[in-house]
């Protein structure tokens, strides 16, 4: 069974440019998460989807970040415009049904973003 797939693995852009990350969760997983991980820190949740619905986006900086999960499968996370401080690793994770709070989350390899 394939794991969580993310692309691209690495991205270098200049500040003020837009950037998008893509995630394909494990087949059958209803819950999808986007995390931000700064160097030397643990991941921090940006947004959580239950199927197509964003049920927790309280930590998403909505002035420049947006996300979507069309058809409740793949998801994209976009930053426009990117700032220097957005340089980090963006992790996608999925779980069978996260609503119960007892599920293991499976993580993708992440997209490492560098903003110059």
């Amino acid at each position: 069974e394939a794991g969580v797939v993310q692309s691209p693995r690495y991205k270098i852009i200049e500040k003020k440019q837009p950037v998008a990350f893509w995630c394909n969760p494990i087949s059958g997983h209803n819950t999808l998460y986007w995390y931000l991980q700064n160097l030397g820190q643990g991941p921090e949740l940006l947004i959580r989807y239950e199927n197509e619905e964003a049920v927790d986006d309280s930590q998403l900086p909505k002035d420049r970040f947006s996300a979507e999960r069309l058809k409740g499968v793949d998801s994209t996370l976009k930053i426009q415009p990117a700032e220097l401080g957005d340089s980090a690793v963006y992790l996608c994770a999925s779980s069978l049904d996260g609503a119960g709070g007892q599920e293991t989350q499976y993580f993708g390899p992440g997209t490492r973003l560098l903003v110059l």
Partner: protein
Amino acid sequence: SQQGEEDPQALSIQEGENATMNCSYKTSINNLQWYRQNSGRGLVHLILIRSNEREKHSGRLRVTLDTSKKSSSLLITASRAADTASYFCASAIYNQGGKLIFGQGTELSVKP
């Protein structure tokens, strides 16, 4: 920051020794999970302990949970060089679905 705390931040041991990492969290939880992250890779789930459990084992891993102290520990016995990685605890916040609050991690180095 919502992040939990882990200590030590870094730990260096010899192969065969045991490694203990500690984690503290701030709010009521459904469960507490431990993850491993190799350099440049995603996180791998190691073990989940529910709030009504006090101790759990999986292979060379032993996890304890003390909800009165809001703390947990991860013990890796008979460590191997391949255990070298960063280890994160993540608390599943009570009544907030699948929301995990991660600690800042312990960087473990096991020398052959």
